[in-house]
């Protein structure tokens, strides 16, 4: 029974892609070493958080977010301003427990700031537009996010300067040794953090009452209104959650991506790859595709050379759009098929 089910699933487009990427991952890890798999998973976890937010906002609010990378930037910026003071305090008064949780304070502080920014953005930008008119909403809101992105990038430059703001590491201590491959603790811990966030988020969406309301709104806005769901509240929560997740990812990856005005471009376009590949608005497909895209990027960098990661995935996306325009997992979000 189970085997039959798996067989049926594995012959669909999604199944084939997933199987091919697992084989590719295993082969390239065998060929180039374990670090490739670790990089893929760390990148993929963060990308999953970014793409989740993107898919969520598109599914619920029909906003094609272009400023998502800037929320990533806000997260890394806030972590940069929260973490070093605690670190300095720790240098003067060593405290094992505090040094364990100091990075967590920074990361969760960034999450909180991201969520607040999300609420502000919803209040100042999308809610006024929704009140004025919802004609041609997808394009108009997309253009709004473009303007928002310009403001945030240049606001960062204006207020904090263009230099790269970074930290050496979150957690001190020797790197872990796994089969003669040294892996920094930061990578391992942030991987677990991102996984925990994805799982928690999934549980939230699947099993809580609020999560159900979010799914209801993403399926049918009018229907959700009729059954008495507080639409404004759900929209604000969605925006805030999505920005929070992006900021969380930014804070976690501060040691990889130093905070500077245009740092968000790369996570943004990777996250967009993910959601287009998965099918616009498909939230759970985005998590799987995040790892596929991350694998694609890491493998391209390892075999073809750095700089090509812009080119190879784009070509693949174009190919996929020819054969399967709705994404490999497909999408049943109402907004996708209109126009």
């Amino acid at each position, binding site marked *: 029974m189970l085997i039959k089910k798996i067989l049926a699933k594995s012959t669909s487009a999604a199944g084939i892609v997933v199987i091919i990427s697992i084989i590719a991952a295993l082969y390239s890890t065998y060929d180039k070493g374990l670090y490739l798999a670790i990089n893929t998973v760390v990148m993929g976890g963060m990308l999953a958080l970014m793409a989740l937010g993107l898919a969520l906002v598109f599914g619920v609010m029909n906003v*094609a977010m272009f400023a998502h990378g800037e929320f990533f930037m806000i997260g890394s910026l806030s972590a940069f301003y929260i973490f070093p003071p605690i670190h300095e305090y720790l240098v003067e008064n060593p405290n094992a427990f505090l040094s364990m949780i100091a990075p967590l304070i920074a990361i969760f502080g960034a999450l909180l700031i991201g969520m607040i920014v999300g609420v502000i953005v919803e209040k100042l*930008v999308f809610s*006024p*537009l929704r009140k*004025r*008119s919802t004609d*041609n909403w*997808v*394009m*108009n809101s*997309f*253009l*709004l996010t*473009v*303007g*928002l*992105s*310009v*403001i945030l*990038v*240049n*606001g960062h*430059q*204006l207020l904090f300067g*263009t230099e790269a703001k970074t930290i050496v590491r979150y957690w001190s201590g020797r790197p872990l040794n796994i089969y003669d491959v040294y892996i920094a603790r930061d990578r391992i811990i942030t991987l677990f953090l991102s996984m925990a966030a994805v799982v928690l988020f999934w549980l939230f969406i699947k099993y809580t009452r609020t999560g159900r309301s979010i799914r209801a709104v993403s399926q049918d806005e009018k229907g959700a209104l009729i059954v008495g769901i507080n639409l404004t509240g759900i929209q604000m929560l969605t925006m805030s959650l999505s920005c929070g997740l992006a900021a969380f990812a930014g804070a976690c990856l501060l040691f990889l991506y130093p905070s500077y*005005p245009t740092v968000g*471009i790369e996570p943004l*376009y990777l996250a*967009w*790859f993910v959601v*287009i590949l998965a099918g*616009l608005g498909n939230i759970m497909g985005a998590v799987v595709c995040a790892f596929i895209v991350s694998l694609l990027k890491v493998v391209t960098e390892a075999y073809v*050379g750095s*700089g*090509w*990661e*812009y*080119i190879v995935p*784009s*070509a693949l*996306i*174009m190919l996929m*759009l*020819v054969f399967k*325009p709705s994404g490999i997992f497909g999408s049943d979000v109402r907004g*996708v*098929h*209109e*126009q």
Partner: protein
Amino acid sequence: MNNKIKSMENNITKEKSFFLGFLKNGLHITPAGLLGLIILLVLPNFPPFNQEYMIRWLVMGTFIAAGAIAFDFTGGYIGIVNFGFHAFVGLGGYTSGILAHKIGLSPWLGLFAGGIFAGSVGFVLGVLTLRLRGIYAAVVAWFVGLALMGLATKLVWLTRGPLGLRVDRLFDSPSNKPYYYLIFLIMMIVYLITRKVVNSKIGLAFKAIGQNMEAAKTSGINPFFYRVSNFTISCTIAGFLGGFYAHYYGILTPELLHTTKTVEVLAVAYLAGRASLWGGIAVGIPFVFFTELMRSSLTELPGLNLVFYGLMLVWVMIYYPGGFAMFYDNMTAKIKNVNLRRFFRG
């Protein structure tokens, strides 16, 4: 005697109306627009605008204005945001530059080669993506732009990568003035072509698709065909402009294909007002001039001009979606005096 005077009067009014009619139906500009264009034409001869750096800004502004017209042609009429617009500009620029560099093609022919090549790439992209929803086309055009930028960076043997490809300039003189007049002419031609297309039967189909796709389909319009042809025209213009860019600056870097450049054109096009075409000229040139002035005079506050840019864009998008063109229409519609109104509205 009386009759003679009357017939003379008739002749005069006829001539006047012939001139006005030509302005309206031949060139599609209002008398006020004509005045503005004449001012723009003579501007580089008068101080303080006759300094080279000021003319440079004017060239840049005119270049962006021409781009904004082509952008508005897709964005405003069929509702597709070409988010890789500057990738097509860059594609045209590189085509023309490489042809001139490798086989010594004249830059003047290179402009057309760039336009044709960018147009064909745009055609292929349009065929692939324009079956889908508008947002897909926007995002995929963006991916293609990123990929092209990556190629321009990585194919060092062809493009010399970030070092920059040196290209012959169009004119021998170091002055910017001939370039200004050339790009001005190009801008006017772009305006006329797009306006003629928009006013024709094809343009009617564009408008129908942009306003309500389902209704357009029901009345027998094939949206795919019109969308692709519109996209191709816009990309061809972009490639042509790219050729000008290459042979004006004399150096091409992958930065030309960057998304921020597209955002610049997009901002001007939407500030100007969607589906207006002329707004790009009226807003683009002063706006670029002003932001450049702001940038060069406020060097200790980098990015302020762009924050202003973004705020303007967000504000206009939310509260005044018609942009400058709608503002102008509303203002001039209130004018009581017939002649004055005719002056402003044609």
